[in-house]
């Protein structure tokens, strides 16, 4: 005759026994304090929305505005482009990664210009030259507007730390992604641009 099988505690039994044991007061107090802290430190409804926050070159902040002259002599103001997703690329003709990624930027622009995408190439002319910028644009056949930051003021507002620097700005003028350094791959550009285009 087989010996009687020893009964092992079931999962349900283990849970019951777990619940039956009184929890440590320290643990309960810690958790209650944590819940209270979460409730007390909620973001008030009166908090300043991102669009109204002071501009800054950072994800979640309003893009610093500028008005600059383009290569063809017209003026371009960033804030006038509200309603369009904007890809802002800061570059210089001597910057090797800028040269590498520029053809991909042009392809992305050609692919999505009909969808409302605006690409701005901001030449850091204070560290470059207008003639070199013009030659660069012709060499790569750039069809998007190139603006000239002759005194470096716009670059300073973007706290330029390295070239190239690219800012993906949504229709409300809020920076959604910042990429410092390069070269950026075409798919990375496309993915960020397509995310912006999908938003209302």
């Amino acid at each position, binding site marked *: 005759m087989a010996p009687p099988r020893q009964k*092992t*505690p*079931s*999962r349900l*039994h*283990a849970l019951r*026994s*777990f619940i039956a*044991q009184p*929890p*440590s007061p320290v*643990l309960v107090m*810690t*958790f209650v304090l*944590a*819940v209270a*802290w*979460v409730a*007390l*430190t*909620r*973001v*008030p*409804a009166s908090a300043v929305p991102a669009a109204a926050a*002071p*501009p*800054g070159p*950072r994800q*979640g*902040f309003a893009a610093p505005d500028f008005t600059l002259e383009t290569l063809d002599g017209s003026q371009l103001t960033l804030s006038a482009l509200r309603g369009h997703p904007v890809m802002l690329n800061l570059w210089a003709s001597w910057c*090797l990664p800028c040269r590498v990624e520029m053809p*991909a930027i042009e392809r992305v622009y050609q*692919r999505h210009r009909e969808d409302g995408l605006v690409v701005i190439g901001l030449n850091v002319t204070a560290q470059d030259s207008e003639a070199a910028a013009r030659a660069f644009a012709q060499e790569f056949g750039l069809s998007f507007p190139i603006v000239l930051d002759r005194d470096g003021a716009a670059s300073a507002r973007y706290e330029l*730390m*390295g070239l190239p620097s690219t800012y993906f700005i949504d229709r409300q003028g809020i920076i959604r*992604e910042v*990429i*410092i*350094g390069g070269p*950026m*791959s*075409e*798919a*990375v*550009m*496309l*993915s*960020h641009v*397509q*995310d912006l285009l999908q938003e209302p």
Partner: protein
Amino acid sequence: MLPFVRIGPLLLQLPGLVLLAGIWIGTNVVEKQASRLSLNAAAVLNMIMAGLFGGLLGARLLYALEHINAYVAAPLSLFALSATAMDAWGGLLVCLAAAYLYGRAKSLPLRLTLDALAPGLVVFMIAIGLASLLSGGGYGSPLRAPWAIQLWGDYRHPTQIYEMLLAVGVFLIWKFTSMGTDAPGRSFWRVLALLAAARIFTEAFHGDSAVLPGGFRLAQVAGLLVLGAAMYMDRRWAPPEPASPGAPSRPRRATPARRPVKAQAKRTIPSRSKPPRTLPK
């Protein structure tokens, strides 16, 4: 804030370097702790590497899947060195799954392995705080006080420093107390609970919180879930209470009896502040 350093044509991203240093120091700490716990330290390190590489690969592949049109147009971009083209949460899940599967394949005991990983996790959290300070990420809300730091056009709470200091505090508690050494696995859950509590506290001073309906901060709600889970697991993995003479016998908890790691539940873990000693087999 010092996100980049230019060395000739190279633009070095300091936050990335700090994170790499955090992984390197963290794995060294884990290796020492694994040896102290009589684990196969090489297998534990390989498990971390499997998790990291799996996580990176998973993060990139999931990101590419989410932006399939972009990657079909430029498939070689899959191999581009870009930290922004990653699905962070997906990568974390793949990282955990890869590490778990590797650990299982190498028969690493779950609870002791988690204990070995605990200090590495804390070191990595310190590195994340420092990387955020360098990049200006995870910035605080505006503050008018002597300890405020100037960042993004305002004086703000130095949330990155708060987070680093609290993580250092958790490390010191782990190092100089016998917290959670009464049973395998508890040390990990207690460290996780402390880190979650620290995050719940510091998130209140953040200026970049993702906000849920009702004004609740996403990171705090996630922190509460982690804190609750860590407390539950800590209690669940507690050693059985000694039965008093004459008291009616109570069924023991299912986990230690059910799992094949029953033997390790009876081990005592060496105190971290004392020299290591060999565990009874």
